[in-house]
């Protein structure tokens, strides 16, 4: 398989999601597929399943996609978005149990070296081992 694992950032805040994506781009680079979503259409806080699905599609890689989330709804909506994918694709998407900003940068750094989805997820979750 070619390409790198993609990264999706899901925050309640569009500013947080966009800012996290900026950090990934500037600190890690452009070789990792990356998409973000956050906020509601009215400019407030929120997350929604459709936006997560579109972000997964935008960052899609045959190697898989790792999702970084902030709180509550971001996680549940991301899990729902994953469930809406075709079963074949679903197996290649994970929601990481990691802080959104640090996890996104760690995951992208791991992904940029060509690592597989499991290694990318472990990198995101390793920074602050529980």
């Amino acid at each position: 398989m070619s390409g790198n694992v993609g990264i999706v950032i899901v925050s309640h805040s569009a500013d947080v999601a966009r800012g996290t994506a900026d950090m990934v781009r500037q600190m890690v680079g452009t070789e990792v597929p990356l998409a973000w979503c956050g906020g509601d259409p009215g400019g407030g806080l929120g997350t929604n399943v459709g936006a997560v699905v579109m972000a997964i599609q935008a960052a899609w890689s045959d190697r898989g996609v790792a999702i970084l989330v902030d709180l509550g709804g971001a996680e549940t909506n991301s899990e729902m978005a994953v469930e809406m994918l075709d079963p074949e694709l679903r197996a290649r998407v994970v929601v990481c149990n990691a802080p959104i900003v640090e996890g996104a940068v760690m995951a992208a750094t791991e992904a940029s070296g060509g690592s597989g989805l499991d290694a990318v997820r472990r990198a995101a979750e390793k920074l602050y081992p529980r």
Partner: protein
Amino acid sequence: MMADDPSVDARAAGSVVLSHTGGLHARPAIKLTKLARRFDCDIAIGVAAVGPWKDAKSIAQVLSMKVPVDTTLHLSASGPQARLALEAIIRLVESDFQGIETSEQSDA
């Protein structure tokens, strides 16, 4: 007894003083990790010649070292291109982490 052909399996060790202001914080750590990953050999990094050693290809491990400025970084590599890998990493640190592009290609 190290082979001079840098492409063959080998061991190499070296050290370099980290003069980067702020120490080995996120951006330089990411650059070091990404450079280390370009090589197939195992690369260990530590702040003492006797270890303990961290995996230079693991961003979490490198960041967890929290290396402050003016620390001597010790490096040890084994496997293909071990010497080349060490030379490249030492050059990166000596160049104040200017030696590798991370992002912001102007084609965006």
